């Protein structure tokens, strides 16, 4: 191992340790002033780095070249989080919710970020997933894992039915239809007795897998993890799989085809003239996105044991969509980061709950003015490791090492 590689590894480790330490500090510190101080320090550090071109470049390069190491470390950290947070089950639950938000945001990112289909009814598709799982569980007693799948599938079916009449029109009309859908669905849920009316569905059984109940504590190496860790690990597994799928699709002809029909950056007409069947591909994007969203909804109902109409509103849809806008349109890491922040921050700032919406609006407007491409802007697609020459090998003849 050359000293250069060692340096890069050290840099990666330092970055990871600092960022995760700050993150966990924000979670565990209860003193609000301290929390603000930590957020401020984190913000300043990130801002400083974004201004310091050389430092930024070397960090980016270190992460690119040691990407496998960085990935493994991230996975290890995610697996260890419940151990670090074992004294506060509440935060494990919130992190689980954050993972569900990541799944939703990834779904919307496929629709809106990649293919440019504005879905303003994400909460409704989330609700379809949650209600389907809830109904099946309470009425038919089907196992929770199956309900996750049923919820996701039902959400895609409903989405496709909405989409068919719109195949021939422009995507803006779909945005309007999705707004109408979430509002109509909200009212339907409030009034349909067989769906529980305003009460919603209560008493949905907690998640369990093949007889293993998620109410048990986990005991590993003499350490006791609270029962909430079960949900966290299952969500992590699902999120990991869906995230990897999302990443691979983005880094393939599928993601490229979606970009080509995206009215925001590309355009449908030219894609059609290049041989792309635009209508079909937007349908595929919409369907896959709704699968993600519905799955997260179904998981949610098996985690909280109840689902009711107030969770399914136009406002909630906007919050989901804003994760994509804040994080960076078509940028998978950005979208994940923004989803986590959108769950953690309101929880952390509970004391100012009534100001959250205003605060959130200000953040969104500031982001759109100052950093339109999001927290982590989408990068150039390099498809696979080793395909794109690194900046270093381009400068020095002799090719990549």
């Amino acid at each position: 191992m050359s000293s250069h590689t060692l340096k890069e590894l050290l840099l990666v480790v330092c970055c990871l340790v600092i960022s995760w330490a700050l993150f966990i500090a924000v979670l565990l510190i209860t003193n609000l002033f301290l929390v603000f101080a930590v957020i401020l320090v984190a913000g300043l550090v990130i801002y400083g780095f974004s201004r310091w071109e050389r430092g930024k470049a070397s960090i980016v390069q270190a992460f690119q070249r040691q990407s496998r190491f960085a990935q493994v470390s991230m996975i290890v950290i995610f697996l260890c989080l419940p151990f670090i947070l074992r004294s506060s089950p509440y935060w494990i639950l919130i992190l689980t919710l954050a993972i569900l938000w990541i799944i939703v945001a990834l779904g919307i990112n496929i629709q809106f970020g990649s293919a440019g289909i504005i879905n303003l009814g994400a909460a409704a598709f989330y609700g379809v997933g949650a209600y389907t799982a809830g109904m099946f569980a309470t009425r038919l007693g089907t196992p929770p894992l199956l309900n996750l799948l049923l919820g996701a599938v039902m959400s895609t079916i409903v989405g496709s039915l909405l989409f068919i009449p719109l195949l021939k029109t422009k995507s803006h009309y779909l945005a309007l239809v999705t707004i109408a859908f979430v509002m109509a669905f909200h009212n339907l849920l409030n009034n349909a007795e067989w769906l529980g009316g305003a009460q919603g569905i209560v008493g949905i059984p907690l998640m369990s897998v093949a007889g293993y109940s998620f109410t048990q504590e986990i005991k590993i190496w003499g350490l006791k993890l609270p029962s909430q860790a079960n949900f966290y690990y299952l969500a992590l597994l699902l999120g990991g799989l869906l995230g990897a799928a999302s990443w691979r699709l983005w880094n393939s002809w599928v993601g490229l085809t979606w970009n080509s029909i995206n009215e925001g950056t590309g355009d449908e007409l030219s894609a059609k003239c290049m041989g792309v069947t635009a209508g079909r591909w937007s349908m595929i994007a919409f369907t896959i996105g709704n699968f993600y969203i519905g799955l997260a909804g179904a998981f949610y109902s098996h985690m909280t044991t109840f689902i009711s109409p107030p969770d399914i509103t136009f406002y909630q849809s906007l919050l989901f969509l804003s994760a994509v806008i804040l994080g960076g349109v078509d940028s998978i890491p950005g979208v994940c980061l923004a989803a986590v922040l959108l769950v953690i921050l309101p929880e952390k700032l509970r004391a100012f709950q009534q100001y959250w919406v205003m605060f959130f609006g200000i953040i969104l407007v500031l982001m759109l003015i100052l950093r339109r491409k999001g927290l982590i802007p989408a990068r150039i697609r390099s498809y696979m490791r080793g395909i794109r020459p690194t900046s270093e090998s381009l400068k020095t003849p002799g090719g990549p090492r």
Partner: protein
Amino acid sequence: MPDRTPLFCCEKLTKNFGGLKAVDGVDLQVSEGAILGLIGPNGAGKTTLFNLISGVYPLDAGGFSLRGENLTGLPPHKIKKKGISRTFQQSRLILNLSVYDNLFIGMLEGFHSWFGDSLLFRSRFKKELKKAIEKANQLLSQFNPELAGKGFLPVSEISQIDRRRLEICRALATKPALLLLDEPSAGMSPEESSELMVDLRRIREDEYRQLSIILVEHDMAVIEDITDRVIALNYGKKIAEGTFEEVSQNEELKEAYLGR
């Protein structure tokens, strides 16, 4: 005895926008390997004609065929698959995607690695990707060897003339039989546009010998230089046809361009 039937035929192409006859009963023929120039003042219907042939607008009357196969009424993506490729007057590249990605969009229909290969069998996808990059480099270097080295740069960072080249490469990527070039030199300096014409002629010397082109152009030097035959349009009607010398003598055309 070579085949004398033309590669591409249009008969009585007609398109009305309300009361305006944008294209009015135009006949045209292109034989294999020929370059047809399409000239006429602004609003003469040149771009509309392209939009009809590429399937963007539905026809009001008439029809067209490629190699004897009737393509009338097909949607744009099918017409492209049959071998008619086009560029646009305004650049329609996606600025935040890389040069390769923009080029790959033109090659999508030839790819086989979709969901299964992207999600599970990445090695198969990688194989196709490597082939695609190789082909892209080959295409790009026919125009500008430097461009091949810029494959992973976003299009927003390459020059205007390279963007035009990229658009033409993209249209050429699937080896079309007929290429529709809509004002390739628009917005470029005379040097750049003559450079582009040299490029066009060069690629036709080897790999694309069979390629037929319909070229819309305002620069008469370019038209004179590169086309075999010229058709002049005015108010959607064909007013002259022949070699550049013949057409340039046409009184009606002179009037249309220069005024009485």
